[in-house]
């Protein structure tokens, strides 16, 4: 067996016997479904929840039925403005001239109740106007001279699901590609120095480049397993739960799944090289963790772009930026279920070059004399 294979097999054996790595992967795979289940329960409960309007005055006929049908409960109070601060979700004073609404925008329940109230009132107004016009012999459609008929080209529920996935999935892919193998990467680099095994390893005739490749391969496999396990568990959870009372399930298209696995391979290899390089700089595991901490922020930032700028459609040059490019390609594959081959090619090239650069840096660090002298 080549020395690459010997090192790979030994590293895998050690990693699989390391509880830290196994627990990290297991927790990551379990945490995502649990979090999604909690979100699902909260959103479903929010959708079904009844909100209370504290009111004074006389409610116009028929409006109370609309309120009840929209999940708004009416409760007579002395002072609707005061009651809207805590006692009820919002306050309303019904007069002959109209409705005075009181609500606290800092309360989420008040925001939801406000939206429902506005919806009910606008429907009530429209119905009253239509009735008045008909009484006077006027066709109510005169108020809507250019009616719009909407024909969604895909399921709105699926679109909402894709939008959710387009943020969540790249985020998990990137964080798990980084953190899934981090412990193993630091153990195989900084850990070698800390355990005083590095000198013996470098004394073997195995070429140092081969030793390093064996280590990077092992860490890449673990990162990949962590990312795929985490995403797999997420997709299984998504296929079983619903959000906000919507019965449509969120699923990943085969194209997006293929793109995701390809990107996961590239990211895992790059992160493995990078974290091993950082670990090689460190004298012990703890110092390695300190060096790797900024990576969390650097990697999470591009994933957040999709959240804050959902319609970010950059030029091809942006796909040269590592991590951001993976986020964008995956987003396009999920949201549009299409693949821009140019963007994928530039992204792949960028990630391969990044991985090669990290490998070169790791090799330089791994072969320098200071590695032994400093220890």
């Amino acid at each position, binding site marked *: 067996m080549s020395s690459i294979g010997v090192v790979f097999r030994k590293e895998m054996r050690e990693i699989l016997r390391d509880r830290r790595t196994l627990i990290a992967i297991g927790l990551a795979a379990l945490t995502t479904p649990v979090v999604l289940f909690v979100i699902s329960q909260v959103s479903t409960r929010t959708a079904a929840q009844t909100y209370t309007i504290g009111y004074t005055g006389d409610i116009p006929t028929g409006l109370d039925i609309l309120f009840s049908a929209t999940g708004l409960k009416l409760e007579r109070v002395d002072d609707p403005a005061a009651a809207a601060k805590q006692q009820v979700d919002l306050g309303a004073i019904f007069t002959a001239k109209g409705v005075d609404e009181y609500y606290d925008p800092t309360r989420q329940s008040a925001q939801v109740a406000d939206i429902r109230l506005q919806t009910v009132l606008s429907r009530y107004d429209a119905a009253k106007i239509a009735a008045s016009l008909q009484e006077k012999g006027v066709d109510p459609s005169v108020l809507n001279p250019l009616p719009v008929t909407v024909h969604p080209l895909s399921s709105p529920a699926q679109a909402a699901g894709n939008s959710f996935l387009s943020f969540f999935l790249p985020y998990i892919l990137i964080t798990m590609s980084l953190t899934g193998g981090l412990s193993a990467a630091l153990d195989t680099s900084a850990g070698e120095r800390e355990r005083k095994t590095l000198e013996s390893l470098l*004394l073997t005739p195995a070429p140092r480049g081969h030793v390093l490749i064996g280590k990077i391969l092992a860490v890449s496999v673990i990162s990949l397993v962590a990312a795929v396990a985490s995403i797999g568990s997420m997709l299984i959870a998504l296929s079983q739960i619903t959000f906000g009372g919507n019965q449509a399930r969120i699923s990943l298209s085969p194209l997006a799944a293929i793109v995701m696995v390809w990107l996961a391979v590239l990211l895992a290899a790059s992160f493995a090289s990078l974290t091993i390089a950082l670990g090689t700089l460190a004298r012990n595991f703890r110092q390695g963790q300190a060096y790797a901490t900024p990576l969390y922020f650097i990697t999470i930032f591009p994933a957040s772009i999709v959240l804050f700028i959902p319609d970010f459609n950059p030029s091809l040059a942006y796909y040269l930026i590592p991590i951001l490019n993976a986020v964008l390609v995956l987003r396009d594959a999920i949201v549009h279920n299409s693949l821009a081959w140019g963007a994928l090619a530039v992204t792949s090239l960028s990630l391969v070059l990044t991985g090669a650069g990290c490998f070169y840096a790791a090799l330089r660090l791994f072969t320098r*004399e200071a590695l032994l002298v400093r220890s």
Partner: protein
Amino acid sequence: MTEKAVKVDRLEKALGANKVLRGISLEAHPGEIFGLLGPNGAGKTTTLRIICTLLAPDAGSVEVLGFDTQVAPEEVRRRVGVVTAEIGVYPRLSARENIAYFAELSGVLDGELDRKVEAVLDRLDMGSFAKQRAESLSSGQKQKVAIARAIVHDPPVLMFDEPTSNLDVLASREIRDFMVESKGRGKSVIFSTHVLHDAERLCDRVTIIHQGRVVAGGPTAEVRGRYHDLEDAFLSLVEAAT
């Protein structure tokens, strides 16, 4: 086999601003224990690290069995086994797995692997803990693992760098016996130490270095000369060189 197992010629090395070696020359032969003696910081470990290709010299040259360390470092590493005071082992591998790993990296072929590993386990009497994870071994047992992994590929040159400094009396005794046994097998044994009683008892020839320079060298009895023992000779030579 070349007559000289190791030949070091006018070796110089600086580590940062510190000039550690200032023209060290020495030779070690097959079938002898060669002592590399000196106080802490004299340059013993740096010399050994250059011989086994972990460090590159700034000037001078080193040959191991005819292979220049600068030209053919992998060939040199194939022929050298090194035991240090730092007995780091892979804690989640068993003693046997630790040894097999280094055997494979040292080029022991698959067909020979089991036989060679078993042979070294027998030789060092490690059968009782061979399957135990290294994290649960005692210091003496870990030192045996460290020796086993250094010799499993049967190198003709063995280097021991302060091998007994962290060990108890029994384990130290076993290391000394092992060096003598290796000498009997025709190996060239280089023993770096500042424990002069050990050196006097074991070494056929010694070189004393101080502040990166050789202050004396030759057969042990000759270096001891008119002094009561090697320690007196060492102190006198080092004092004269300071």
